[in-house]
């Protein structure tokens, strides 16, 4: 070969490491990083879900008896949890509408939809807080056996992730209001929307598991 080296040009590399837009095309660093991070989050929840199935399988009946009241634990879908679930699913749609809007370059629709998504996220957290208060007043606590422990750990860590997602949405909203996103430059929006969808999917799984999956009767009853 005549040449044994060539100068590094901006076409070979983005001049700034971690720059979102890769001249060679393909998925951006930020979005790939978020997808990988979400993978690790999936494994985190997998650990908690495994614990839930384990204690459920070991229990003679599910939901088990609350030692304080002498009756089986019972969770109410209405009035709070059902509407909160519907709201969170809706927020996934508004989040995606925001992504589509900024891809078109429609900043007004983007800001409106991100704002709605953020508001729903905060509302969900408030509703969860109220629900926790009601449960605690009924004697269902973190310390009340495997039922309380798994319920509050699973929903609590989901709530923590909603909280984290709401902060991310808040940052995106703030940056959007400052005009930092455009049809070309909006990787943060794409990444945060992925995270929000993940949080939503986890809740759908949790809701199905905790509220819809039939319990099991004690053997011989």
């Amino acid at each position, binding site marked *: 070969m005549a040449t044994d080296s*060539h100068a590094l040009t901006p076409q070979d590399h983005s001049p700034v*490491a971690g720059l979102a837009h890769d001249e060679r095309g393909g998925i951006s660093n930020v979005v790939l*990083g978020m997808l990988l991070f979400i993978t690790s989050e999936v*494994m985190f929840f997998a650990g908690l879900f495994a614990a839930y199935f384990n204690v459920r399988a070991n229990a003679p009946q599910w939901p088990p008896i609350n030692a304080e009241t002498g009756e089986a634990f019972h969770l109410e879908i209405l009035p709070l949890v059902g509407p909160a679930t519907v709201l969170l699913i809706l927020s996934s749609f508004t989040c995606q509408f925001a992504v589509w809007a900024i891809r078109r370059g429609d900043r007004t629709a983007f800001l409106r939809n991100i704002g709605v998504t953020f508001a729903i996220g905060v509302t969900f957290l408030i509703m969860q807080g109220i629900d926790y208060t009601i449960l605690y007043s009924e004697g269902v606590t*973190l310390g009340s056996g495997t039922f309380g*422990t798994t319920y509050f750990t699973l929903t609590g860590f989901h709530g923590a992730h909603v909280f984290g997602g709401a902060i991310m949405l808040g940052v995106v909203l703030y940056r959007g209001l400052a005009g930092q996103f455009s049809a070309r430059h909006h990787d943060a929006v794409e990444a945060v929307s992925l995270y929000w969808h993940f949080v939503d999917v986890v809740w759908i799984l949790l809701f199905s598991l905790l509220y819809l999956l039939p319990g099991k009767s004690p053997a011989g009853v």
Partner: protein
Amino acid sequence: MATTALHPAARTYRSTLYEWVTTTDHKKIGVMYLINSFIFFFIGGLLALGVRSELAQPGLQFVTDQVYNELFTMHATFMIFLFIIPILAGFGNFIVPLHIGAPDVAFPRINALSLWLLPMAGLLLLLSFFTGQAPAAGWTSYSPLAQDRPLGSVGPGQDLWIVAVVLVGTSSILGAVNFLVTIFKMRAPGMTLFRMPIMVWTVLVTSVLGLLATPVLTSALIMLFIDRNFGGAFFDPRNGGDAILYQNVFWFYSHPAVYIMVLPAMGIISEVLPVFSRKPLFGYKAFVFATAAIGALGFSVWAHHMFTTGAVYLPFFSLMTFLIAVPTGVKMFNWIFTMWRGQLVLSTPLLFALGFLSMFLIGGINGAFSAAVPVDFALHDTYWVVAHLHYVLFGGSVFGVMAGLYYWFPKMTGRMLSEGLGKIQFVLMFIGFNLTFFPMHQLGLAGMPRRIADYSSTAGWNDLNLLATIGGFTIAASMIPLLWNIFVSLRSGKPAGDDPWEGNTLEWATTSPPPPYNFDHLPEIRSERPLFDQRHGHAAPAATAVVPQSASTSH
């Protein structure tokens, strides 16, 4: 171009310390990973000397049972979570962007976060000594041993341990995301996946393991934390929980973690062996697939730590454990045939790589014994297991770390380490290591259980324990030539030049130490040995038309 450079005087308003603490340069972060890890290596080593001193003779001479439990718990915690895992991440940090021809990692600021979480975790662990009781439930912190009630670890020390390990895990996860995006997105033109140095492949597989396994450990530790502090019932059988659950979730991380702790060390010696044998790596693709196979199989063997619980399906986990020896054996052949008929240059990096090969081989063989269920029932929780894990993690990983240190120190600092002192260190360490850990096989077969502070003087274990203690102090002595070597080299070592070893990979194409942006020019990348091609590609220019393939590709 000179107009774009800062005036030299502009540098003086920042101190060197400020520059290092705030840096996002992957090379400085890599070096700080190494320094941080070595500090905790020495702390963990001192704790190990405490363990060995107590065990030198029967009876309790120096510490109480409780303090002994703290010693071995904290020894293992520091060595695993704050030395081996981070130091290999540190080598990866320094070398991966250089190996693939990138200017930095994909997320430099997250990289800095990954680094600075580690000293914080280490400080929390050290603080636990001042809480009245340091963690004493072993590095595994099994429940109910690690529970407050009724007999377990009291006080906040165990909680500090949990928080510290979660912090280390967070650092690992963020580091894994960073490595994967860097490797998949930031490779130089021509650097296809199958031209990447083996070191990069091992970091890639390690990152996948870290990404998928570490969060499961986090969930286990969080459940333990809830049980300890908020009356949770995850692992408490009296409230419907399941103590075995903790072991399952814990080992789902901690067995893959064994590969996290050894794969990058395998990568290091796979860089060292070809360079010092003056040959390409034998069977590059086989090595890559073997690495991926170890990563995949690594997720299906965790319960071989739990054979004696009676709660796992023995034939499956035994079979998988035997299976994982196959790709490891493939690698042994790769390494041996890389050296076969090579022109071996017996420099210190090669010596440590040979140490890795021989010691890791023993660790693999004695591990295969324990994979057989009936044998494991006899050997479980004896000193045989201690021997096995140290042959893998010390004889394997630490020898690999030393090989990497001697190999890349010139690139990191621009100075050569002394060969003489390096060889003294190797001899002391090799002898000390085998004196310490080989007798433990015999002790285990003779029935000595692990994690005991005292033993009967009539059990026949006295001489071998004394021998192991002498070996332990020999290992400690081998650190003196290392520290002296580093100290002298930094002050007045021989300048290294760009490429002191006649290396094959891209890090040797830039200056030592490399500039902040890594490369002015990249050589053309047409194989996994671009620098070899650059050096020898001109050897027979007239022949290029006749044998283009053999001149330009090596796999």
